[in-house]
């Protein structure tokens, strides 16, 4: 909704009002209207959706074709310094939100907001599993694969989660500069999320369950999250302070998901059921943050925060456990965070910035023995693994005005992270960067920046460099270049070019990430065709490439020890690598204007994305049976991954006609076509016969009629 003035005064009008006293009263009225925020508007929306498609439905909250009536409301009243507001959007839909607030500006304020956020799975599910949404999933009794696929008990399930968020906020100035604030946010999240569990291949009648050993086990979600924040702010011209408390309390209503196997979908002997669900947990933080102006050119900042997290939810039952683990983890994590900074314009042209940030995470959870395994006479103990780490981030930056609107910025960013639990106890990264920019040119502005980062670390544990270094600990060089050009070609035409690229090189690792690079180029244009008609358009090209190495089993001639079903992991390993490529193009167009008395607009988005997974160093042929008596070319037989493609074409049109000064009618049309060609769920059938799939092309059309009225 927008508020439109029914009167556009000009100097002439005011002059007339000044010249002719008789006219002054209406001039005051009109000025009052122009300066008053008071609004009372309502809209009734009647969108008709021709069909429900999962990709379009994901966040829009509409799960029924046809008309989904909803309403918007806006009410604002200001009297002196008191504001009263009511806002509501999408009332009647699952995306509805509303808020009410009352405040005396500069004195006190109180508000209450409600927001509903749905998320529908972008996939369709057909299953014979029962108990979806509950904490007890029962697998069907199926004799074999053919029976699973043709089970008469298959039914469609819509997986979705929904958040309902209510926020109450209040504040009060106790005296000029001294303000108390309080916020409590209550969020209920419920629904079901796509999930699964490992079972075993069935051993029933021929053909045995050839699909997979995986069982469909959607995760039920039923949790409450409360967040509270209380602050005391004191603000003067010289310094500012905030002291606060933040509490976050998660309560989950279930801590275990039981999966009951059916015939031919057994779970492994030692039982994979129940599955642990997220436990209750909480964090409480106290913080003080402040800033001090040493002069108008020099300012320092400091924040100190301390928090403690707890997790002592009762352990799930029904599992074999070792003695001495207690009834819950009794976890305790203490975090200390410090941030300090100083900025100073030391001369007219030179500005300096220095900052330091520190984090100390101490996981003080008691360590206990939770499991043991014995293999070949060797016993391995499994303890819980508290994760503690410390980190420091430092920044030093100088900005120098070169004149003529040009700026030169250079700086260093330093990061150091350490943890005794990591395979490498200490990792540091130094980034050097330089940028030149122009910001005050009449027609041409822009920026160009380069940065180079080197990440290195201490020796790996036990002094031996492992063959694969975890991606977040590995040595790495990274270069970045960024450029942006803003061209005001004419008074009515603006064009913006942006380019960004990165080049990464992970070194000293035999496996894992090797090299990566990515680029993005954008051009945006906006053109004021006239006072009424505005046009904007943009195009973005993004691509990236990542190479990584691995060693694994390939069932091939001369390597057929890998062909036996359950010895994939123990056969001779081959060296292979993957080159992951992504390429996307986006084009957007917007046009707004007026035809006669009708406001009109159009938006177009065309988006195409292609991902390639190129696997190389594969043997030329692979076995097509366990005995390796027949072979076939790798490309078709070993499962080289096909490209994945995603396309979205969306056109939105609207027209709004003023029936009267207070009433408008709006017509909307949306055409949305999405294509997903993705192997992720293609031909996938769980061992229990559940199919999860994506309709490859989905077209949704919406025609909406709205009536807007200002009271």
């Amino acid at each position: 909704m927008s508020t439109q003035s029914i009167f556009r005064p000009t100097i002439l009008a005011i002059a007339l009002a000044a010249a002719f006293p008789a006219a002054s009263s209406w001039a005051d009225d009109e000025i009052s209207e122009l300066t008053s925020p008071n609004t009372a508007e309502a809209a009734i929306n009647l969108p008709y959706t021709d069909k429900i498609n999962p990709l379009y439905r994901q966040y829009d909250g509409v799960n029924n074709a046809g008309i989904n009536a909803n309403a918007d409301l806006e009410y604002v009243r200001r009297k002196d310094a008191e504001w009263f507001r009511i806002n509501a959007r999408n009332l009647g839909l699952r995306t509805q939100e509303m808020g009410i607030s009352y405040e005396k500006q500069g004195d006190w304020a109180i508000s209450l907001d409600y927001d509903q956020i749905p998320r529908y799975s972008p996939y369709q599910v057909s299953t014979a599993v029962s108990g979806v949404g509950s904490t007890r999933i029962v697998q069907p009794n199926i004799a074999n694969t053919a029976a699973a696929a043709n089970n008469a008990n298959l039914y469609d399930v819509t997986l979705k989660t929904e958040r309902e968020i209510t926020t109450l906020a209040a504040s009060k100035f106790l005296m000029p500069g001294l303000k108390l604030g309080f916020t409590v946010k209550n969020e209920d999240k419920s629904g079901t999320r796509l999930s699964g569990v490992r079972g075993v291949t069935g051993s029933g009648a021929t053909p045995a369950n050839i699909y997979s050993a995986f069982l469909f086990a959607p995760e039920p979600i039923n949790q409450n999250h409360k967040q509270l924040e209380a602050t005391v702010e004191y603000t003067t011209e010289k310094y500012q302070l905030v002291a606060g408390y933040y509490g976050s309390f998660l309560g989950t209503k279930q801590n275990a998901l039981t999966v009951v196997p059916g015939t031919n979908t057994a779970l492994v002997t030692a039982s994979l059921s129940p599955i642990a669900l997220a436990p209750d947990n909480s964090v409480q933080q106290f913080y003080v943050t402040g800033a001090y102006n040493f002069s108008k050119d020099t300012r320092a900042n400091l924040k100190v925060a301390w928090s403690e997290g707890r997790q002592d939810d009762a352990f799930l039952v029904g599992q074999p456990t070792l003695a001495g683990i207690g009834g819950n983890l009794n976890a305790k994590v203490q975090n200390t965070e410090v941030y300090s900074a100083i900025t100073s314009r030391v001369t007219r042209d030179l500005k300096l910035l220095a900052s330091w940030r520190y984090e100390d995470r101490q996981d003080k959870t008691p360590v206990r023995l939770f499991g043991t395994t014995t293999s070949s006479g060797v016993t391995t103990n499994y303890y819980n693994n508290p994760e503690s780490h410390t980190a420091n981030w430092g920044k030093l930056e100088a900005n120098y005005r070169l004149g003529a609107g040009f700026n030169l910025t250079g700086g260093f960013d330093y990061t150091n992270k350490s943890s005794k639990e990591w395979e490498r106890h200490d990792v540091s990264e130094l980034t050097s960067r330089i940028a030149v920019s122009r910001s005050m040119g009449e027609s041409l502005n822009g920026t160009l920046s380069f940065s180079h980062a080197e990440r290195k670390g201490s020796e790996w544990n036990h002094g031996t460099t492992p063959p694969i270094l975890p991606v977040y600990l590995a040595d790495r060089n990274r270069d970045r270049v960024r450029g942006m050009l803003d061209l005001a070609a004419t008074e009515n035409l603006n064009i913006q070019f942006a380019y960004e690229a990165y080049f990464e090189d992970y070194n000293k690792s035999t496996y894992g990430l090797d090299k990566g690079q990515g680029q993005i180029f954008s051009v945006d244009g906006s053109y004021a065709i006239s006072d009424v008609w505005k046009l904007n358009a943009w195009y973005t090209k993004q691509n990236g490439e990542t190479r990584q190495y691995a060693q694994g089993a390939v069932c091939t001639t001369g390597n057929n020890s890998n062909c036996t079903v359950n010895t994939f992991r123990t056969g001779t390993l081959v060296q292979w690598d993957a080159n992951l490529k992504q390429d996307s193009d986006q084009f957007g167009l917007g046009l707004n204007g007026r035809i006669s008395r009708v406001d009109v607009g159009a938006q177009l988005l065309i988006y195409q994305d292609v991902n390639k997974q190129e696997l190389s160093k594969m043997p030329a042929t692979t076995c097509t049976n366990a005995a390796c008596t027949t072979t076939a070319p790798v490309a078709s037989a070993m499962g080289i991954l096909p490209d994945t493609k995603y396309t979205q074409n969306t056109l939105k049109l609207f027209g709004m006609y003023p029936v009267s000064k207070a009433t408008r009618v709006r017509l909307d049309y949306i055409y949305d076509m999405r294509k997903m060609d993705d192997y992720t769920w293609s031909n996938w059938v769980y061992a229990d016969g559940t199919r999860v799939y994506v309709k490859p092309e989905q077209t949704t059309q919406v025609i909406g009629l709205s009536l807007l009225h200002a009271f």
Partner: protein
Amino acid sequence: MKVLRQLFASCLVLGALAAAPAAHAADATASAAAKPPAKDLVLKGDAKCTSCHDEADEPKVLHIGKTKHGTLADGRTPSCTNCHGESDLHTYNPQKLKDRPATDRNFSKTSRLTAEEKSTACTACHQGGKHMNWNTSAHANRDVGCTSCHQVHVAKDKVRDKRAQAEVCYTCHKQQRAETSKPSHHPIPEGKMTCSDCHNAHGSAGPKMLVKDTTNATCYTCHAEKRGPFVHNHQPVVEDCGNCHNPHGTTAEAMLKARQPFLCQQCHADAAHPGNVPGIRANMPNAVSSNIGPGYAQARGCANCHTNVHGSNSPSNATSSGPFRFFR
């Protein structure tokens, strides 16, 4: 005589008519001298500006009355000159220049002021609370000023509207615009989330101007179930959610930076089964694919078995596929 009388009368009338403008002018001069000062229309002392500027200008100056800045009953609210400067050269144009000099603090695109100089108009009042760390923010140090994003003279500032805010941010952040259009994204294009849910554009004590002090703490404001701690913690999860996820959007499910198993193989690919070659069912010979092969690349990838990859709180001592490896 009659003719003379008529001539005299005519002269009187003409004289009166001729004298009228002069008399009117004299009245006008007297009136001007006695004219009361121009009346403020919106803000305290705004007559200095609104005697010339009105809704025909861009921005529409009177609309500031609809905003909190225009709420006169709040004694803290400014006048035009608090933000734009006294601007006497602009007001009186003493040199009678054809192009009137700009105001002392001009916010237009052609302003000769730096972003920092423009922003001092705002930071004079807005330097506490959420604006505390503006001076250290990437925005403040990259020539982004308050008015680069905010519209001060309008009742509805676009960047403060949840549905429209991202468009303002995309003016500079093209990569984020591209990524939020990808099939796996937060509901930003749908208007149910916006950039400021995670970022404080005015600066923060956290990384990347996040609203909380760490990346994980920011994510946990909505995803607290991932916080743990768990019996079995997954190291990169504790370290930084951003190790695996790109929150602006990706083509892989769950906003993962790469598809499984490739993402997992960036840390686990040198021993036992984690480094195995992923395949898809349509291309796999059944006899050797029944257990592991397609399970790497299809459906939930590695998470087909490793269900609790964010951490498991199962106390189980199950020796096969136990919680130690996030199976349950």
